[in-house]
């Protein structure tokens, strides 16, 4: 059977599965819609959180990025896992005990203020919308390469599927489809990784294969270091970013992870405080399987790529080479017209341009794996993109229906009406996300990475202070969030988009002006520190925290009597 036929079969089966689960788990109440009824088991919640968390970026792009970054790829590996330690120890148990539906719920009540709630809603919408547009695009890319449909058609098919189970099932539908999607995506990621690890090192565990010897008796990493320096690249295990930037980016991603509303909200769906702790551990365990295999895939893919193409005649390239050339993600330009592929670091002499995204998608083809494995990767990429998109859409729809309509504009709304409002805002959110997927503003990819900086700069300090500092008042928290997110936006616009210096073209030249030598991706760390400082200083000079709010704080510190999530 051909790759394409296999892809149709596997994608078809998985989509049918997701729709089946959606029909089985329809939401009947707002509580089911927002937090899946609050009775999800820690195991299911752990898997759902893992799928929610691992987006198209984790599945498709990350290993490819690492393979070009070498050591520096650690910023993603540690940054996107270490945040779960913060989540589990500093946030999840207390927010679960607090027992509301959304992050703005917590901010609004803890800081006894409608303004604080509205600021939080705006931050949540900003973070989630930028993030979700990238996911829809990912769906489109997978469809176009593997099923050979137009990218836009791919986006629309993806929209219909998500619409179906997010609108029908709300959080309940999303949770159980995410459990299935986790299984699909982890299987799809690990099977090729294991195959290639055996092929290259004889060790079936990719995490170990990465540090093992190849068939020629030389350690794989040593060989890759040699190949890299030979071609003029930095040594693979050394990397090229400055230490302070690696530090700042890793920290911003960790703290951002712990401040992302669509991740936090997952911990509202379990029954008890102890379940929230446990499911954070399980979520990280499930995530770590992929995150420790990804750097291995990066090493295998990079070595394979260099060995296959470097200095070889263009005419002898295998089939996958021309397949990917057609998509424009692989470009060869024979500058010195010798018919050989010069793949080197020097841009003047380099003849091959490789898009980082194809490393995972093309890897099974490069390694000559069977057709069904290649098709599996397509199904896995779709599962990763759809599960994250659905989680984000839920945050957007509950921000609108619960935080804005129910708690700000029209508190008299009935339960039934709120459920209708929640479903309608989910439909609206899917359409907006789809629009951005079809007409991606040029900056989507860049902003997805920066969504973490925004979350770090806004939510994280407000939530931490809300739990660990009883005397934190509303003036301080609001000032901190506003200053933090504004500073982050300013830095992003200045150094990522060059808005104040004449547009994108100026960005590269501004690098020497970076504050403390920290890139926009790492700046969330600074913005977060500023948020903390502003909050504490303003707090010092403004009003007392009401007695009943201090009691709420004392209450959330004790795990017993969590009850169920309520309005």
């Amino acid at each position, binding site marked *: 059977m051909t790759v394409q036929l296999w892809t149709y079969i596997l994608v078809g089966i998985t989509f049918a599965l997701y729709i089946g689960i959606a029909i089985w788990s329809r939401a009947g109440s707002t509580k089911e819609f927002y937090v899946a009824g609050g009775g999800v088991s820690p195991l299911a919640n752990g898997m759902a959180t893992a799928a929610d968390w691992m987006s198209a970026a984790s599945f498709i792009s990350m290993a490819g990025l690492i393979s070009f970054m070498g050591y520096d790829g650690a910023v993603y590996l540690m940054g996107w896992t270490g945040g779960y330690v913060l989540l*589990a120890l500093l946030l999840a148990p207390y927010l679960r005990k607090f027992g509301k539906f959304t992050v703005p719920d917590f901010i609004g009540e803890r800081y006894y203020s409608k303004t604080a709630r509205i600021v939080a809603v705006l931050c949540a919408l900003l973070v989630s919308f930028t993030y979700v547009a990238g996911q829809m695009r990912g769906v489109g890319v997978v469809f176009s390469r593997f099923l050979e449909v137009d990218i836009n058609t791919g986006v629309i098919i993806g929209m219909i599927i998500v619409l179906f189970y997010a609108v029908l099932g709300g959080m309940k539908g999303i949770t159980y489809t995410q459990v299935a999607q986790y299984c699909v995506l982890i299987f799809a990621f690990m099977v090729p990784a294991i195959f290639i690890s055996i092929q290259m090192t004889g060790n079936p565990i990719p995490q170990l294969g990465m540090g093992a010897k190849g068939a020629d008796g030389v350690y794989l990493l*040593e060989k890759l270091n040699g190949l890299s320096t030979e071609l003029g690249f930095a040594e693979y295990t050394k990397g090229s970013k400055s230490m302070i930037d690696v530090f700042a980016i890793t920290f911003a991603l960790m703290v951002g992870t712990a401040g992302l509303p669509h991740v936090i909200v997952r911990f509202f769906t379990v029954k008890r405080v*102890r379940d929230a702790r446990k499911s954070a551990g399980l979520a990280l365990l499930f995530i770590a399987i992929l995150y420790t295999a990804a750097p291995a895939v990066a090493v295998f893919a990079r070595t394979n790529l260099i060995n296959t193409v470097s200095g070889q005649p263009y005419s002898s390239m295998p089939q996958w080479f021309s397949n990917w050339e057609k998509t424009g993600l692989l470009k060869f330009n024979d500058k010195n017209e010798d018919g050989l592929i010069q793949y080197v670091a020097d841009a003047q002499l380099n003849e091959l341009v490789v898009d980082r995204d194809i490393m995972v998608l093309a890897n099974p083809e490069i390694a000559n794996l069977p057709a069904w494995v290649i098709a599996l990767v397509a199904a896995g990429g779709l599962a990763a993109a759809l599960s994250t998109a659905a989680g984000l859409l839920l945050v957007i729809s509950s921000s609108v229906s619960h935080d804005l309509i129910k708690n700000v504009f029209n508190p008299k709304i009935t339960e039934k009406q709120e459920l209708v409002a929640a479903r309608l805002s989910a439909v609206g959110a899917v359409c907006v996300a789809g629009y951005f997927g079809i007409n991606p503003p040029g900056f989507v990819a860049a902003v997805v990475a920066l969504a973490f900086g925004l979350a770090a700069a806004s939510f994280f300090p407000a939530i931490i202070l809300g739990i660990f500092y009883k005397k934190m008042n509303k003036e301080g928290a609001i000032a901190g969030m506003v200053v933090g997110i504004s500073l982050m936006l300013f830095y992003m616009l200045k150094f990522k988009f060059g808005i104040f210096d004449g547009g994108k073209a100026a960005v590269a030249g501004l690098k020497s002006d970076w504050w403390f030598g920290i890139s926009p991706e790492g700046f969330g760390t600074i913005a977060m520190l500023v948020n903390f400082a502003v909050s504490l200083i303003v707090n010092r000079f403004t009003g007392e925290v009401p007695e009943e709010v201090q009691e709420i704080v004392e209450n959330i510190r004790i795990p017993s009597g969590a009850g169920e999530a309520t309005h």
Partner: protein
Amino acid sequence: MKNDKAKQYWRENLKYLLILLTIWFSVSYGAGIIFRSTLDQFYIGGFPLGFWFAQQGAIYVFVLLIFIYVRLMNRLDSKYGFDKD
């Protein structure tokens, strides 16, 4: 009385957090970033040690830390009688 108990529980909890977060910081920012070059002189298998911490080891420790925290807290909850729903 009830308040004292809650305060003591909270203090023990903070102590655990401090210890666990110190480990969290040392394996990632310490071994994986700040002292990476020094550690890279040592090898486990084909991995330079600092590189291994940054791309593998830190993540394993993160997972362990959460499960240790879960155990410690479950024990603490029952010690103070906060394990009832």
